[in-house]
């Protein structure tokens, strides 16, 4: 049993798992974060218990979740990593947004939970874009570039049908992946060479899934784009003056849109058309 070490933005951590199958699964799931350097914090996952089938998640020696089902423990681990990433990356402006990159330019998809941004970014990556994140866009306040946070895409059950071709193998790491609360997809499951490097934001699209609705793209002014970005900034008020200045810089350098639609393929086509359009068009 050896520790796997990772760095995701400002969060450097190790994971130690009793179960070799889980260790192998996590090594693949968290591969974009793998590092070969000392890390200050560690998760341990004990179990599953042979008699009860439950497992326990600890973080730096403190129990986070005890005697829970393995899928619940796995989901909690991934949630905890995300939360720590947000807490330990104060130097960046962090947007609650998905993002993907094409030819060095990123499309940023800020939206509240449940708006469909993970599903949309999965569709964009499946269609050829490269993956930056489905959860937190980290903007460098000095260069305005986005640092990748290539966490596994967390697909909710509501999107299983529309992404059915991406359904993970049920027997990859039982019982950890049995009856999953979510699908956890790595970028390489969406296509070859789908990991993006740092990218400059070029387009901002705030998506809203609306069942049965036709695709509608509404241009935003730079000021409206700034408001959308601010509305979707984690802990905006902790550094509000800095955040406002940084977001104004992003808004001035991007084209902003509000996207509404109910068909994933049509939404993907609309966003790709925007990304491929020359600056100044449309």
């Amino acid at each position, binding site marked *: 049993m050896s520790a796997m070490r990772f760095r995701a933005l400002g969060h450097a951590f190790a994971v130690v798992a009793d179960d070799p199958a889980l260790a192998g699964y996590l090594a693949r799931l968290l591969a974009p974060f793998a590092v070969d350097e000392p890390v200050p914090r560690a998760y341990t996952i004990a179990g599953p218990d042979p008699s009860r089938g439950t497992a326990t998640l600890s973080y730096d020696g403190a129990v986070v979740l005890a005697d829970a089902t393995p899928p619940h423990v796995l989901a909690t681990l991934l949630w905890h990593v995300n939360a720590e990433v947000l807490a330990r990356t104060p130097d960046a402006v962090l947007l609650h947004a998905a993002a993907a990159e094409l030819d060095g330019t990123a499309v940023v998809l800020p939206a509240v939970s449940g708006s469909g941004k993970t599903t949309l970014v999965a569709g964009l990556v499946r269609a050829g874009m490269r993956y930056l994140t489905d959860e937190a866009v980290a903007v460098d306040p000095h260069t305005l570039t986005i640092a990748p946070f290539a966490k596994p895409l967390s697909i909710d059950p509501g999107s299983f049908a529309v992404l059915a071709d991406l359904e993970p193998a049920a027997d990859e790491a039982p019982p950890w992946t049995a009856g999953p609360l979510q699908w956890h997809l790595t970028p390489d499951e969406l296509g070859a060479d789908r990991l993006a490097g740092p990218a400059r934001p070029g387009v901002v699209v705030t998506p809203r899934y609306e069942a049965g609705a036709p695709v509608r793209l509404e241009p935003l*002014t*730079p*000021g*409206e*784009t*700034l*408001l959308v970005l*601010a*509305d*979707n*900034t984690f*802990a*905006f*008020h902790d550094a*509000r*003056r800095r955040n*406002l*200045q940084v977001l*104004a810089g992003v*808004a*001035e350098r991007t084209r902003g849109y509000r996207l509404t639609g109910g068909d994933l393929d049509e939404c993907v086509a609309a966003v790709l058309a925007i990304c491929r359009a020359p600056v100044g068009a449309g």
Partner: protein
Amino acid sequence: MTPSRAAPAGGDAVAAGTVAVPAPGVVAVAVADEVVLLDERSGVLHLLNPSAARVWAALDGRRSVAAVGRTMAVAHGVDVADVAQPVSALVAQLAAAGLVTLSEDAPAAGAGHGGDASPAPGETGGAA
């Protein structure tokens, strides 16, 4: 916590001699030809369209609302009568939202003499 946002609303008009100045705790950020105001006391964001942004830039605490109206008229090549009421209404809305403070004691150069039509800081004039 994310910021809430609002468009300045409410208020009818202010007297022509009124002088407005940005309220303490209001941070203005220009983005292209618009301005976003952050009221640090409430955390609320306000978006000013390009026309309102130009008026905002002219609210320097010296010029009266009437003088600001004349500035806008000169900058855009329109009659003062066409812009006086919208400028007055906008200042009233900004005041109602707590984004500016008002005083009636306009300095002589800015109130009632009709001579202050120079562009405000940041005012480029012309484009609308």
